[in-house]
């Protein structure tokens, strides 16, 4: 068990998510994690459903998509190594805000929401290590959304 935890922690610290995370926190976190491997095309999160797991991508890529009536699914963001998915699991309502689909075979360290919440509640130092990283993920979502709203690369109508 101990060896598995160390292995998971080692994998985690190879990503930006835990690159500068204190080792003991990484290990205590890894101890409640589960290594999951998804084939390409797997839905890891589904929009509108209860999000039961928070995951960190160790290797792979996930497309976060929204379904638009009449248009179909649109990818609003892709996330890669070290990025978080399923952070809605940390919220009381735990309703996923987008659908996450793997674009390539993807390996992730996944945390079930109840043990994770309990670990963070009992250990503020773990919570204070995790939440800034969650905020990075949320910030990325916001930045991507803002960029899309601004539609920076569009062409306007010009006199020339």
């Amino acid at each position, binding site marked *: 068990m101990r060896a598995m935890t160390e292995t998971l922690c080692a994998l985690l610290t190879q990503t930006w998510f835990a690159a500068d995370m204190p080792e003991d926190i990484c290990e205590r976190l890894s101890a409640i994690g589960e290594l999951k491997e998804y084939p390409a095309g797997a839905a890891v999160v589904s929009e509108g459903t209860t999000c039961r797991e928070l995951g960190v991508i160790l290797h792979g890529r996930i497309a976060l998509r929204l379904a638009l009536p009449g248009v*179909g*699914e*649109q*990818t609003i963001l892709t996330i890669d190594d070290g990025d978080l998915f399923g952070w809605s699991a940390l919220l009381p309502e735990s309703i996923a805000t987008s659908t996450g689909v793997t674009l390539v075979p993807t390996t992730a360290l996944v945390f079930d929401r109840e043990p994770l919440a309990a670990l963070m509640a009992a250990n503020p130092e773990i919570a204070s290590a995790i939440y800034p990283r969650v905020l990075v993920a949320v910030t990325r979502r916001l*930045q*991507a959304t803002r960029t899309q709203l601004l539609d*920076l690369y569009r062409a306007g*109508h010009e*006199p*020339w």
Partner: protein
Amino acid sequence: MVTASARFLPRADLDRLFTALTADGRRVVGPTVVDGSIVHDELASFAELPKGWTAETAPGAYRLQPTGRDRLFDYNVGATSWKRFTHPSIVPLTRGRRDGNQVVVEAVEIDPPKLAFVGVRACEIAALRIQDRAMRAGPLGDADHIARGDAALVVAVECAVAASTCFCTSMGTGPEIDGGADIILSELDEGFVVRTGTDAGADVVDRLGLGPAESLQSDRAARQVGAVRAAIGDPVPAEGLATRLRAALDHPRWAEVADRCLACANCTLVCPTCFCTSVAVASDLDGVEGTTDRTWDSCFSQGFGRVAGDANFRPKVKDRYRQWLTHKFSTWWDQFGSTGCVGCGRCIAWCPVGIDVREELNAIAPIGAPSGPIPWPLSPIEGRAPAPLATVEPAAHVTATVRSVSFETVDTATLELVLDDPALLGSRPGQFVMVELPGFAIPPISISRIRPDGLNLTIRSVGPATAALVNLATGAEVSLRGPLGRGWPIEAAYGRDVVIVAGGIGLAPIRPLIDAILAERPKFGAIRLYLGARTPRDRLFVAEMNALAGRTDLEIEEIVDRAGPEWQGKVGIVTQLFDHAPWDGTRATAFMCGPERMMTATANTLEHRGVTDENCWLTLERNMACGVGTCGHCQLGPFFVCRDGPVFSLAELGSAFGLEGL
């Protein structure tokens, strides 16, 4: 060269001066009363001078009043300035013709009239010099302006009265005249003390056969102008003003004055130094013949700072008033080594709501004001203006032939142009050209490839001119002017890692940089390319970028803003490609091009990665109408983007980069 030995011209003999001035075919322009104000106009004789009139001025007020004296120059400055003659409101630039595939664009021949300007005041001499310096700057200067100025003979008159709106004393431009004129007159009741400033002026005065001025007359003239100086005082303490003003870019007074300002542009039109212009394009009905004219414009115009993509860099009156005031009194020093204001007071008198620039300056940048951050250190032009990296002087109106047109996306095409002009073939990566089809607006287009026999231009169709360009057929001709601007400083990256970030059409000016770097691949460390696009369909040079991805000596990643489920690549903003990448930014030189908002985000991320401002280069988009720094459209703080850029380092731009309203 003002002669020490003054002569005297009796009032009764003044017409002899008119005769001497016109003897060699020169026409005389001077002050005369028209519709209740004194303006400069062509004179049939000196009888048309404003004898017995003075002008009372105040903020928003100008009234002629009789003096009861016989003096001709008992006023200060008229409503119009001399730029009406040296920098006319409309000047023909080119005549073009499109005959099938053939295009001919020719510059209109310059034939400046020989004029004598009579009644030029000290502040106006300074204005002529200042505008002349601005129009001679840059790679080409403004040929029409230069020719008109060179052809003029200046007969100056020292002020004998002071208007309430005068502040030449503060600007160091008057009221005494110590040069810059061919002939200098000081008006006394009985006549004129005459000095000469040039050989041309001496030639005219010698023909008058005048006797010497009495020392008492010269003394009276000196006391007269001395009294004017005392009457004006020093209403705008100029010492340190340029620095104080640029430290007050966020002063609340800008918004306050904007509430009063109508943005009518009167101040810039009457200003003797304002030189901003636009290019007006006209076409005949069948689109065969086209003309371009240079026309006065103003930084107060709503669309003056507008660029592609409906962006407007100075959308608010507050922005435009700040631009005008900070240019006149601060950044003009960086660009031309002097103040841009001569203290003539026209902008005060002719402001319909009576905004007094002296009051605004003293409120926004008073002596002793707490200093805020200064976006650009004040430096004289010699020390700051980045030397153009072009190795050759830009060519004018070179005809190029379209060899092929390749559509990169639904609205963007690459024109492969063949030409034999050495200047254009010597273009540097990052430079641009002005592309002209007769009858259409003339867009600045970045060079997207430099070939031994021509240039590639990648153009997005966003309006009539660009639509016409991307729809040209093989064999069609276009007219080019360039190469213009500073290119990428490739040498700055020798021995270093290279990070290149491009967004959207921004990949076009980046591509010649990639070509140049790969041509000298061993001189660089690791090369990393990060490309952003709106959607997968909007990516440029797809096959070429895919080929680069197959190389082992560089890394390339791309990302799009949005995509359907068929897209297996990355989606998000371009910084996402490298915000957690493992490379060391302290060893890297970065180059980027894209929408400004994308570049500010990229610059922030690069800074966090350790790339210094000195090693971070970008190319800016502004409204570049002339391409050589004489129209004013693309001004950004102390820079003209077309002339000093469009490539800048972040260190050069300082906090000007990304600052709203500049």
